[in-house]
């Protein structure tokens, strides 16, 4: 009886969690084993047929390759850049608050606004990049229309948006390090690079792990910019997994197949998170 209040207090949060997170997740998994129902042909159990379809779907494999390339292109770059910026703005420098703020600004902009901004940079002939290139006599280029450059363009923009956000975490971690550690190292004759390699970087490992997991999830989760910039084109050259799921579900109305893709995406993310935690946990020092 005395636990009733506890359960009552938990109920609102539990209802929201179950209704909007756990039930949809389980329903998605179940849906992936059924065919898409129509008025004439109701939904029926098809076992792993949807998964077989997925294995034979060349667009799925292309989108998956795109997404892995996108992750590989954005994650290390944005983390390295974030660390570099954090170390820089952690130092004594003039107008430090202003520099920190300007690095953080891309983070507070909505992705759609960022995409619009960069659309203006990438637009052929009248865009900023082509205008500047024209000054040096370089020919105009359709950056987003060319399958060989479109992914790089999206990656650059994502790094620009993400790095400032990750910088904040690194900055907070750097400020929790005692300045006496650096002084002790200095007296021993350690160079800045040596100190960074042997002390700062290992002590930042927990932050790096956190940022890495977030960056990985984001690289699969953030697709807002595709709606503005490319819609996955040209010819799926810039299509990412989540955007493909959106297309399958709401443009082609293949809800079962979309569920299957979703399950695969979730499994992929979960597997990556587990690997990251286990690999890095061994080399992470938690205080």
């Amino acid at each position, binding site marked *: 009886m005395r636990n009733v209040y506890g359960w009552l207090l938990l109920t609102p949060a539990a209802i929201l969690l179950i209704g909007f997170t756990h039930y949809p997740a389980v329903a998605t998994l179940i849906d992936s084993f059924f065919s898409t129902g129509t008025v004439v042909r109701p939904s029926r159990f098809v076992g792993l047929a949807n998964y077989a379809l997925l294995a034979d779907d060349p667009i799925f494999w292309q989108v998956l390759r795109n997404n892995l390339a996108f992750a590989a292109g954005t994650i290390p770059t944005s983390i390295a850049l974030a660390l570099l910026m954090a170390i820089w703005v952690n130092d004594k420098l003039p107008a430090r608050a202003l520099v920190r703020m300007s690095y953080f600004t891309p983070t507070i902009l909505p992705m759609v606004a960022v995409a619009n901004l960069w659309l203006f940079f990438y637009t052929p002939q009248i865009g900023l990049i082509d205008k500047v290139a024209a000054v040096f006599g370089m020919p105009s280029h359709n950056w987003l229309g060319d399958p060989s450059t479109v992914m790089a363009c999206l990656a650059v923009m994502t790094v620009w948006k993400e790095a400032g956000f990750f910088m904040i975490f690194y900055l907070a971690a750097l400020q929790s390090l*005692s300045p*006496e*550690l650096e*002084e*002790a*190292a*200095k*007296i*021993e*004759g*350690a160079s800045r690079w*040596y100190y960074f390699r*042997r*002390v700062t970087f*290992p*002590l930042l490992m927990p932050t790096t792990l956190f940022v890495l997991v977030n960056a990985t999830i984001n690289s699969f989760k953030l697709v807002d910019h595709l709606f503005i910039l490319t819609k996955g084109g040209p010819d799926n050259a810039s299509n990412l997994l989540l955007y493909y799921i959106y297309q399958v579900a709401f443009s082609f109305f293949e809800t079962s197949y979309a569920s299957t893709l979703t399950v695969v995406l979730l499994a992929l993310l979960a597997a990556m998170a587990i690997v990251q935690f286990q690999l890095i946990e061994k080399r992470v*020092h938690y*205080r």
Partner: protein
Amino acid sequence: MSEIVLEKVTKRFGRMTAVDAVSFRAETGKFVVLLGPSGCGKSTLLRLIAGLEDVTEGRILIDGRDVTRLSPDKRRVSMVFQSYALFPHLSTQENIVFGLKVRRMPEGERLKRLAQVAEVVGLADLLDRKPQQLSGGQRQRVALARAIIAENNICLMDEPLSNLDAQLRHGMRVEIRALQQRLGMTVVYVTHDQVEAMSMADRVVLIREGRIEQEGSPEDLYARPATIFAARFIGTPGMNLLALADGPGGAVVRGSQDTLFPGRGGGLTLGVRPEHVWLANSGGVAATVTSSEYHGADTILTVRVGEETLFMRAPGQLAQAAGTQVRLAWKPGSLHLFDAATGMRAAEELQPGRLAVAAD
């Protein structure tokens, strides 16, 4: 040789002068304590010697070499920090040899030195532990080991014992002093605790508001304080300071009738240590007990003489109810006179010297 000489060293932070034209010499193999209340600039002074702060004016010489503008690692000094500054992700062993690795010492030599130093500070069994698995005293030893393994001959210590409990502090005091003497290191040691200064130092540099207040051996500071500040700072409790006045037969404590010594009293302050005051049966100076505080080995009595209050330390238990009338006497030659206006020790010819209040 490992001698440190400071010549008129000044450090300003903006408009604030933290260290003001300080000159002193730490001779080879001596234990020099920079003593002072918090915020007096003693830690800044140590950081200037280490090279962690830039000197505004003046020169610092180590072994006759001008190191004023040299970076910390070129000064060949070791340092023990107040927080120990151990690298939390490295084992005891890695922490100790950190500096040797920086200097790319060959592994054989490194391990040999590690074994020696670990033996000296008593850490041989704890080399694989991380700092958070060590007690405060053990961390202190790791910090010490890291400082001595470089064999620099000069070691700077910034309040190294302030994070330890009282019992451990006493043990470490003895150990650090023994270590310093065994290795013949020149140590500059910063503390606000006068007990540490008195018990460890060859030479004490008392600092107040960025300037040297008095410099000398612990015995000098105790026996001949140069200022009222020095008199009050050394000793537990510090020296009693009583305002004097002119009386009919000579100097009296303000508000008291009993003559202390012939001559002028006005404008002077009398200093006498609590341990040099005792109760007399007759003669001496009349006083009233206001409280007594029992410490076990001794009792601190608080008494009023005229308008002034003083402490006296009596061995053992001395039960005296508040309000008891007593008479005080003091050890011959233990009275000090200071100029009340300047706070400086009065001229030697004014000192009461051997004159003591007669006691039976």
